[in-house]
């Protein structure tokens, strides 16, 4: 789905959600604690932050190359008519969206499913 993104329907958002659903299936079968050991919550929320950073980073990279913010044309400093910058920029940006969505969805699931129903004695 992710690499469909540039040439066909579908895209990064949906791919991110599917990734999160895969993690949820793991949590359903092997239990939440095992899944949290495999994909720690810290990793999930770091992934979300890294996704946003990739997106913004592509924008700033274009700025440092002398273009405007998020102007993919300027990524490799190619003349007008060349399309490599557009392709690379879109793929990178979609990768950022994928990471952000997958991380955020996993964080939400952990937050809801990981709640302890009542406070036990040992917690005090």
């Amino acid at each position: 789905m992710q690499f469909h993104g540039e040439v066909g329907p579908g895209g990064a958002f949906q791919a991110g959600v599917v990734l999160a659903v895969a993690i949820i299936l793991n949590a359903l079968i092997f239990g939440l604690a095992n899944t949290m050991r495999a994909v720690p919550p810290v990793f999930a929320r770091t992934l979300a932050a890294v996704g946003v950073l990739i997106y913004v980073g592509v924008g700033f990279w274009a700025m440092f190359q002398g273009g405007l913010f998020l102007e993919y044309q300027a990524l490799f400093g190619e003349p007008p008519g060349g399309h490599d910058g557009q392709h690379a920029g879109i793929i990178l940006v979609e990768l950022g969206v994928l990471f952000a969505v997958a991380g955020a969805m996993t964080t939400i699931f952990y937050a809801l499913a990981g709640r302890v129903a009542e406070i036990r004695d040992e917690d005090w």
Partner: protein
Amino acid sequence: MTAAALIAILIGMVLLLVRALMGPTLYDRILAVNAFGTKTVLVIGLLGYVMGRPDFLDIAMIYTLINFVTTIAILKFFRYRSFQVPLARRVDPAKGGE
């Protein structure tokens, strides 16, 4: 022909919906929803053929998996009231499995 098959499945979906709404026990509802999901996969596949663009089968593929995840999630939640209990235990080769 495909349109007739599609309409047949849609009629089946309506009948299943009646069972999902009536369902005396909760399990009847889950059964109806699960069968409904299978039929939706088939409907999506056939819709592509009826509209002359059978390239949308990716969605049907994802549905097949998501329908399974949903059924398992509902059943597990209903049985354990929690997401935290594992359904299957990983066999530990060091202990020889227990």
